[in-house]
């Protein structure tokens, strides 16, 4: 193997056979650069929204905080050289006339809410740091391979997970999905909630169809030219827009019809008749292409999927955490205390488990929905978490029952530790492995449940897009527009399959019985 001598920013000078890590490093760099360059307009707009340039005070404040923080770090670590390098770059960045660079935001405020933009921008900035750190660790591992004897059981398991091919496929898909979710405002081509103006687009557009838009779209509506022309209505709307005072009935619009190709932007002549007299108007237009078509309401499907990913991915995870916390506490208490506490808690679990879960969820949701006009996503997460802990509590209880008979529990008791300390510091951590496996497999299940609820109209409500409620819309137009129901379902399948792959691999890695 040829020795490589590279200077990788953030990693250092590399003169070893570092091919694998370096390839990964360059791949990540290429993706990052591609996003920033190809979506520069959007990144600029998001930075504009996120940093609130109308209030530059925020910028100076964060610069000040960063200065104090980094100085403290340098003082603790004695890394003055790194500090001065960092500040040379930071001050250079600070004195770029950002106001001028970022001016001219093209985003409508309703779409890029400030916190969304914040998250996307932070992720975009943190990502290179993450990959530099990862490459550095990879290099470190390569130069000083950890000996098997010196590894903790957790490290051994993680090593097995890393070498498992299926798990790494799953982890990559999930990484990609979470990346898309974080960068949603950067990547989504259009506002996922933007509706076409009533009467202009009459049905869901097929994948890769182009619509020629007249006027600007800042007020959240699209004006379309020449698609599915209804000579009376749509054109009337069109002219209504161009000259708001005069209503000119048109009989014919000279716009692009199906199959027509026009330059992306330009001027088109619209002809018609006004009171029997023919006339022609010059109309500026630009093309909007919908890569996956539009949904039943005429919203861009791809943007809906990108924004919907945030709901599926976060709901599954957070609901799992809630369920694990409740289940672990109930299971530990029942298993350790035993007796009547155990009996009572397990009977409650029995009752809740024989209730069909979807019916239970629908009931709770119906009760909540009637009390409040709008059911927020947090409530759905809470409901999903609060109804999913029963299986976990049984699992944990079974673990605790065997653990509490072991000598280390006796030792803990002999030391006079409180019951709470024994339960949550000694017993629960020892039953972590099956809990982790179970909860990973549960995330996929929860995503499926949330999608089912949204599909039934009892979860995330339109117009907020979620994969489940987009499929619901697709059901209405199944006969005419197959793509609306198909693509979000595929997204769900890929994400859930990935979670299950990772869960299976975790089980293989964490279960010492399966290890040779």
């Amino acid at each position, binding site marked *: 193997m040829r020795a490589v001598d590279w200077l990788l920013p953030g990693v250092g000078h590399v003169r070893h056979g570092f091919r694998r890590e370096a390839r990964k490093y360059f791949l990540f760099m290429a993706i990052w650069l591609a996003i920033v360059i190809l979506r520069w307009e959007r990144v600029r707009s998001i930075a504009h929204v996120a940093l609130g340039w109308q209030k530059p005070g925020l910028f100076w404040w964060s610069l000040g905080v960063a200065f104090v923080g980094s100085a403290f770090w340098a003082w603790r670590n004695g890394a003055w050289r790194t500090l001065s390098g960092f500040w040379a770059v930071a001050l250079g960045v600070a004195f770029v006339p950002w106001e001028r660079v970022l001016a001219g935001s093209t985003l409508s405020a309703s779409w890029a809410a400030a916190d969304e933009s914040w998250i996307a921008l932070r992720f975009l900035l943190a990502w290179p740091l993450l990959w530099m750190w990862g490459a550095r660790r990879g290099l470190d591992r390569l130069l000083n391979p950890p000996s098997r004897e010196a590894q903790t059981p957790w490290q051994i398991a993680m090593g097995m997970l890393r070498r498992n091919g299926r798990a790494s496929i799953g982890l990559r898909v999930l990484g990609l999905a979470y990346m898309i979710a974080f960068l949603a405002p950067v990547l989504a081509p259009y506002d996922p909630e933007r509706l076409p103006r009533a009467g202009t687009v009459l049905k869901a557009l097929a994948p890769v169809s182009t619509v020629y838009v007249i006027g600007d779209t800042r007020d959240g509506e699209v004006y379309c030219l020449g698609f599915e022309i209804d000579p009376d209505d749509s054109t009337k709307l069109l002219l209504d827009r161009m000259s708001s005072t005069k209503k000119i009935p048109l009989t014919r619009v000279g716009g692009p019809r199906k199959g027509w190709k026009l330059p992306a932007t330009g001027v088109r002549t619209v002809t018609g008749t006004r009171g029997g007299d023919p006339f022609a108007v010059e109309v500026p237009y630009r093309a909007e292409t919908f890569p996956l078509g539009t949904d039943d309401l005429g919203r861009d499907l791809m943007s809906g999927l990108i924004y919907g990913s945030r709901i599926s991915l976060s709901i599954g995870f957070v609901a799992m955490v809630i369920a694990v916390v409740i289940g672990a506490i109930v299971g530990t208490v029942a298993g350790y205390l035993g007796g009547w506490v155990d009996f009572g808690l397990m009977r409650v679990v029995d009752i809740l488990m*024989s209730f*069909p879960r979807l019916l239970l969820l629908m009931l709770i949701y119906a009760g909540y929905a009637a009390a409040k006009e709008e059911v927020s996503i947090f409530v759905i997460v809470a409901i999903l978490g609060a109804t999913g802990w029963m299986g976990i509590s049984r699992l944990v209880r079974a673990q605790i029952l065997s653990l509490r008979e072991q000598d280390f529990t006796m030792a803990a008791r002999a030391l006079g530790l409180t019951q709470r300390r024994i339960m949550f510091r000694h017993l629960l951590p020892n039953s972590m492995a099956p809990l982790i496996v179970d909860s990973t497999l549960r995330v996929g299940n929860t995503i499926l449940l949330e999608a089912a609820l949204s599909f039934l109209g009892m979860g995330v409500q339109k117009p907020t897009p979620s994969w489940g409620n987009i*499929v619901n819309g697709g059901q209405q137009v199944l006969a005419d527009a197959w793509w609306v129901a198909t693509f979000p379902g595929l997204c769900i399948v890929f994400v859930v399959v990935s979670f299950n792959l990772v869960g299976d691999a975790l089980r293989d890695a964490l279960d010492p019985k399966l290890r040779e």
Partner: protein
Amino acid sequence: MFAFVVRRLIWGVFIVLGVIVLAFFAVEAAPGDPFAHLESPKMTKEDLALIKEKWGYGPDKTTMDRFGIYIKRLVLEQDLGDSIAQGRPVSQILSTAIPNTLKLTVAALILDLLLGISLGVIQAFKQHSWLDRIGTFGSLFLYSMPGFWLALMLALIFAVTLGWLPRHGINSPGESGFGDYLKHLILPAFTLGVAAAAYTARFQRSALLEVIRQDYIRTARAKGLSETKVIWKHAMKNALLPTITLFGLYLPFLMSGTIIIESIFAWPGMGLASIQAINARDPQVVTAITIVATTMVVLGSLIADILYAVVDPRVRLS
């Protein structure tokens, strides 16, 4: 064994009672008005109050009172009450809905066992072959698939595009033959059964692989029996046993599945009825459906336990 069954049955009654309480109060706690659909300009406030009074929703009645009346009617007269939204006895609604759901569930179970067991056996038989790999990956995809999406995709392919099977309902208008019914049954039953079959195949595969490693199989092979005979006469007898227990686990899964599948295929069973009842805030119907579903789940798991003990003498019920 008898004592076990009696104990389980008594406990099952308690579970159902707990579920009744839960379901009743969950529906009652919902602030939606079950009488909202009755309001019309023709009806005066007094009329409405009179109707509410008649249904036990008078101003002097509390939820506890209604619960007492409900339980009394249920226990003494075996009466599930009347549906407010539909104005007819709940038992009448259920008597058409339950058979439909049962037919669907049984058809799904049969499909599940047929597909799942045969796929699992083939996979174990040809372990590490491409067939095994495809089967494993296929079942992973199938049980990671949202049921409603699978249903829509199958409907899209077989009902909308190809037009081989009907999309909605239980019978085509004007027809009532068995063949027509069967045609309507295929799509919902297949959707429901195929996801369960993915689990069954996975389970059956590992069960058979475990049995094959045992000594008596080696003995059978050493006797010079053909591989087919070893698998079907010796291994399968033991490998089928754990699959039977799955049956009990599937019932809650199928019960939840029917809610979605029935709403997609407009199959007039309990799932569809429960969605309608929840949307109409119809407490009696929701509670009744919950009771029926829970009873089925409890009975199903009991039957599975008994079956397991009957077919496998090594299992002792206690």
